[in-house]
């Protein structure tokens, strides 16, 4: 991995008494999909707004593409973004909207139809934006973000308000975007969306960064092995002594060891040495969800809820 494509230090935004983003130090590597996860009002949109020069930070610094600090217009030319909701000119067709934005970006060769096709809007390209369904609006937003083939793409809750089929479609689209050296910054209040789509994630709660890392690492940190033995008391002592097991606790008549499932055979071997024998054993599939719930105290899995 090269230098981070986005790097913030101590980034803060305060609206009067409301602290929207607090002392955020973020680092996004080039390539792949980076998730910005947090419940509504946690500061995702404000963060993106600051990265795009739309919102002035109260404090802190931003560095894009490893260039000098700040958000110069030249950097924004390399970013495609759709922030908050997909907002376009209601009286113009989808095609005219994209033509307009392509025009003010400065006459690159026309790729509008190709983009409309890639998001499945070609058929309705000549209908007015105001007649589009929410799903179509979101997809036009994605097409707009792709205009000019940017290196970095910001998508702010792009699946908001979509039905499950639409969500799946847009998620597939996003996964594809993260390849070919492009970086996607995806914000979401849906944990399982981030797990599905993102490579790395930063978790925000009330404007503060509470965790950041690769999704796989965060998930494995939460992994556990559940088992029952011939002598649970003895087993507890033995397993706690293993340095790769974080903790052992009892839950519903089972022992639960925080450890990746791949090491279950080592666990078995260690117990066998002490004459303790496994009766039952199963890996526990832990998602980020539990962690997320614990740290943010919010229900992150309500797909129907519209984010702010």
């Amino acid at each position, binding site marked *: 991995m090269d230098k981070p494509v986005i790097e913030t230090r101590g980034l803060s935004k305060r609206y009067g008494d409301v602290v929207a983003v607090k002392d955020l130090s973020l680092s996004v590597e080039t390539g792949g999909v980076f998730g910005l996860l947090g419940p509504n009002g946690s500061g995702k949109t404000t963060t993106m*707004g600051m990265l795009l020069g739309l919102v002035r930070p109260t404090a802190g610094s931003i560095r894009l593409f490893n260039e000098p600090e700040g958000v110069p217009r030249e950097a924004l030319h390399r970013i495609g973004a759709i922030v908050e909701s997909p*907002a376009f000119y209601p009286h113009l067709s989808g095609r005219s909207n994209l033509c307009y934005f392509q025009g003010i970006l400065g006459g690159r060769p026309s790729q509008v139809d190709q983009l409309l096709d890639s998001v499945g809007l070609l058929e309705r390209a000549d209908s007015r934006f105001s007649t589009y369904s929410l799903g179509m609006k979101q997809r036009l937003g994605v097409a707009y973000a792709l205009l000019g083939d940017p290196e970095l793409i910001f998508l702010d809750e792009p699946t908001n308000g979509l039905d499950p089929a639409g969500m799946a479609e847009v998620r597939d689209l996003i996964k594809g975007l993260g390849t070919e050296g492009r970086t996607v910054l995806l914000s979401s209040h849906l944990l399982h969306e981030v797990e599905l789509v993102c490579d790395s994630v930063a978790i925000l709660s009330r404007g503060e960064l509470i965790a950041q890392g690769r999704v796989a690492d965060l998930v494995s940190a939460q992994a556990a092995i559940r088992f029952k033995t011939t002598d649970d008391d003895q087993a507890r002592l033995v397993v706690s002594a293993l340095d790769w097991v974080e903790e052992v606790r009892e839950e519903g008549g089972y022992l639960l060891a925080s450890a990746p499932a791949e090491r279950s055979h080592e666990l078995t071997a260690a117990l066998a040495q002490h004459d303790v024998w496994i009766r039952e054993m199963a890996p526990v599939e832990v998602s980020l969800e539990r962690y997320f719930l614990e740290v943010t105290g919010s229900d992150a899995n309500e797909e129907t809820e519209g984010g702010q």
Partner: protein
Amino acid sequence: MIGYVLSLARWEWFKQRRRWLPWVLLAILALIPQAAIWGSFGSYHFQSNDSDRQMVFGVSGAGQRPIEAHGDGRVSGGRIGQIVPGGSVSVNCDDILSGNVPELPPGFPPEVLDDFERECRRDAVQNDQIRADEYDAFAFPASLGFALQFAVGFGVILLIVLTTSVVGTEYSWGTLRNVLARGTGRWQFMAGKATLLVFLALGGLLTVMALTAVSSLIAVSLTDTPVGYVSSTTWLGLLESLGRAWYGLIPYIALAGFATVLVGSSALGLSLSIGYYIGEQILSGLMSALFDWFDTIGDYLLGPNIAAWVSGGGGNTDGLLMGMVLDSPPGQLHASLVMAAYIVGLSALALWRFSRRDVGGASGG
């Protein structure tokens, strides 16, 4: 840099020309002056031009003085009732001027008739002038100049509506985020809008002129030219009127643009601009009536200066800028400089404010 702003203005037109609003406003702007043209035509064409002066020669009781009875009912030299029945003769200007001299009652001094004839001749000249003026108001090309002045008067309101909408919808639709997030220059974007509006104002005035020209040519062909009519306008004068009208509209683009950027909404921006426009007139009328020193301040308000400027120092500001009363209109140089100061000042404030402001979500305003 200028090329970039012009390109943004061109793309702004790409958006605006697909909306209803500019076209509806243009229709209002162009059609209202036509009503004025055809009104002048009607009063010229359908009303008689005869002098209403009439004289009744009679003898009043004791002094045997002549009694003059005018067509409008005024009587001088006595009362109508005093006229001796059978001994009076009624004469009107038409008779006199066509040499139809009546026989006067006995004992009447003949110079009375000469006096009356002189008055009739003076009337006729005056009447020709009135007729010529009436004709001038709808005859090509002078009509174009009047239509322009007239159009500026209410065009100001239309332009304020258009400006606040062109700027404010970017906030209410939330499209401003999309525009700026891609690195479009902030002040350049607004300057592009302003440039488009300045040209739309010119386009509106040219449309008024074109439509008025058509109306004029039709109207002229339907009636007679008054004797000795000379148009009050030259082509050069017309060009000047256009320039004056155009420049007179620009401060309101700056005003409405500033107000909208300040509050970030079309509706609020519109209320603020119209409020200023009307408030300035009410306040200046009231204050200058109450305090002498306010006249000096009035010289630096937008309305009086634009009224003076657009009427070209002619002082004829009827129907202009909602009847701004000009006791002593500011001079032309003064007016043009004050307008320039407003344009530069308000634009600079608007652009400065706009380039610093956070751009949030759709406000629905």
